[in-house]
């Protein structure tokens, strides 16, 4: 039998295990997750609380978020520079963060009961938790204690971001680099 050379062979036959071509159901959970765990063992660092705050201050400093690289409309330069604590105070005023009222407790109770099977099993734990909860502590009023699904969580995060935008009194603007027209003649 003559050997016939395949001009354009299927790439999956040439590469040993192309990482983005692994279609087997459950392969990732069975194989990739342990591989990731092994690959990252000894290469991951969990920071303590003070270092965590330091990291966040480096990655997302107030001056970058509210003054320099991100600007606000309308210009708020006449007032003092915004800081995260100012934003939090304004969210307190707009009832996004603060002490729970009785009505909000009821809303959360209804939300829990509406979840059915998933939450029935944790009902005792929830009652115990509620009993020990300090009523005078502050929390996010539509926060994760009432959220059991991804869509609710995404909604909660986006609501908070909308509230932040309202609290700063304008729209965030991101800087973007574009090509200047002087070089168009080269094409």
């Amino acid at each position, binding site marked *: 039998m003559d050997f016939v050379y395949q001009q354009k062979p299927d790439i999956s036959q040439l590469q040993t295990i192309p990482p983005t071509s692994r279609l087997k159901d459950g392969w990732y959970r069975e194989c990739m997750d342990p591989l990731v765990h092994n690959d990252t063992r000894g290469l991951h660092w969990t920071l303590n609380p003070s270092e965590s705050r330091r990291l*966040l201050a480096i990655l997302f400093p107030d001056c970058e978020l509210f003054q320099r690289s991100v600007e606000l409309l309308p210009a708020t330069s006449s007032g003092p520079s915004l800081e995260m604590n100012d934003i939090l105070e304004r969210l307190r005023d707009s009832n996004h963060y603060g002490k729970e009222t009785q009505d909000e407790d009821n809303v959360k109770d209804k939300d829990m009961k509406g979840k059915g099977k998933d939450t029935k099993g944790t009902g005792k734990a929830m009652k115990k938790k509620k009993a020990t909860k300090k009523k005078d502590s502050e929390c996010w009023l539509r926060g994760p204690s009432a959220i059991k699904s991804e869509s609710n969580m995404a909604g909660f995060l986006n609501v908070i971001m909308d509230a932040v935008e309202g609290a700063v009194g304008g729209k965030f603007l991101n800087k973007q680099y574009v090509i200047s027209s002087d070089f168009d003649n080269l094409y």
Partner: protein
Amino acid sequence: MLFHQTSTTCINTTAIRIWVVDGANAPLQGSDTNRKPDLILLPADVASSSKPLDWTDVSTVGEMKINKSPNTVKSSYIEVAGKTALLLYAQDGQHSAPCLQLLGHHIILMFFDRARSLSTAPIDINQHPEVFLRILVGLSHAPLCHIGFDETVISEAGGKKCVLVAWTGDLVGNVVAMDSLLFISDALHGHGTTVWAALMHSPNLKPPRRIVVKDSWIDPLQKYTEGRILAKLNKAGVKGVPKLIHEQQVQGPHPSHPDSKVNQSTHFLRTLLSHIKVSSYHVRVLSWLLTEPFGQRILDFSSLAELLVAFINYVLSELQCMYNLLPANSIFST
């Protein structure tokens, strides 16, 4: 397409990023691997469009568990790490990625780069609302370079990418336009090598030169970088090796002094976190390498004979390099 630093201007856009859950219901496009991140952060205009969601649009991912326990912390870390690997594999302009673990009313920010990964301590969002806000506002509104994107890789309308190369001497005025992606590393750690085919337009030279652009996070402590070796081989006239056009370390804003431009390195962030020792992470700097000619992929060779000739030439060039020009250990160590 890009070039010299004076050729760019800065404009303000209103592109913000929002959280969506569509990826939890159907696998994201852009990868043959079926992975469904619980939450993804997307530019608002992409989220509102009707096109299928793609890994190339994702800024960051979040994994959600109902409560925080040692088991959920560990399992969600592994899930986030796996999805971050896919994210970085899909984005040829992103070098690092902050990601979220949402565990009950606790939040953990994870940061993956080419040194290793960092994660914050679990933060109770009710007890520390300002920290929670900083994470949210930062991920949604911080400049792209703060969430891992390379400022020197610039996207044009239509999806074309450009690279900003600040060079001197005879090369000033050249324009490098990315043509196609040839290779991108799929490893979460390591050098994060990305290679493009590109066109280099010169003011007085037509047609444009077809070149290869490579960026990777190299070890700055190595005596011989790839560019330095190529320069020596080119000078000695060794045949069969690429011709070096330009090598440079890429500059970016300093983490704590954004007005100052420094060579991008994994070292700066760690030195600002006091108790992390140099020996516990990989020191890497981002390097661009421009070479020519642009050849042909092995997969596109017309015959086995052509492949064989290429391998013979490769072996002969290697022998000439090792025995006549460089100390043997310098080749093996790079």
